[in-house]
């Protein structure tokens, strides 16, 4: 099972809850990828490359993702999930609270 974890960050550093989520994903499957939604090339993906158990780090960069609002994030994740994944996970942090969860592909 391919699993996609959504990284939570503030465009500078990674939130620790992302690591908890990766560990949870690892408990369910070995094929874990992480996606970073960013804008203006803000780069937190280098931190993720060293995390144990992460296969690939994907980055989606767009101006509409600068405030991490629900609507553009959902749109971005939906595209990502439809193409590549069977399940996705996100931290139950500010993010999941305002994001719809459309990321389970049919």
């Amino acid at each position, binding site marked *: 099972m391919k699993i996609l974890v959504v990284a939570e960050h503030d465009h500078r550093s990674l939130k620790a809850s992302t690591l908890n989520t990766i560990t949870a994903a690892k408990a369910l499957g070995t094929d874990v990828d992480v996606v970073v939604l960013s804008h203006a090339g803000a780069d937190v993906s280098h931190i993720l490359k060293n995390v144990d158990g992460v296969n690939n780090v994907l980055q989606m960069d767009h101006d509409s993702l600068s405030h991490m609002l*629900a609507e553009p994030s*959902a749109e971005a994740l939906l595209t990502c999930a439809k193409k590549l994944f069977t399940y996705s996970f996100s931290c139950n942090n*500010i993010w999941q609270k*305002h994001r719809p*969860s*459309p990321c389970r592909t049919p």
Partner: protein
Amino acid sequence: MKILVSVKRVVDYNVKVRVKADQSGVELTNVKMAMNPFDEIAVEEAIRLKEKGHATEVVAVSIGTAASQETLRSALALGADRAILVETNEDIQPLAAAKILKALVEKEHPQLFILGKQAIDDDCNQTGQMLAGLLRWPQGTFISEVEVNGSTLTITREVDGGLEKIAAPLPAVITTDLRLNVPRYPTLPNIMKAKQKPLETLALSSLHIDTKARHTTLKVTEPPVRKGGIKVTSVDELVEKLKTVAGALS
């Protein structure tokens, strides 16, 4: 502007819930039921928006058994103008609830939909977000303040790091947090008046919506009982207990 508010009938928050003997769920027979507290805040906010002159009509909606009429009546007693019940005996999960509410939006054409951020029975916190997603409307979740400026909402959201302020065009979906307002108590005359207000009942089957459950509950268990502490007489004994019993020192 017309406002739709959804209310859910749940076990009263004062009731100490018990798990059924067969662990299939929570005991609901002979248990006091009430309106979900977050939905009460949603109804109150809709009424306040009406009192401020932003809204013309407040419609309370619910999904559930015929008993949910009682919950809708209490929304009417608080000040909603009319109510719609989508009647079903099925267990409705968040995605199905969002689809049903979407059907009601298409029927009623409101400008604003207010929901409680979550119901205190399943704590899902999904319906509002899913409804916004299905409608492709902007969403403001966990709001502690809302202001209407013409066709735009200014919303203050409660997030982990503090408060987030966003602006969203109408129509929109918003979900309430605890600090948004303190709901009023219904007055006796209003409770009497609520009995006369229109309450429309729709059968779920008439809406032709796929409400199939997407997940199943395997079992429900009580949280582990907290064990009492013990008194120790000396530091040596304390260290000994910490090593052997608590496993705190190694």
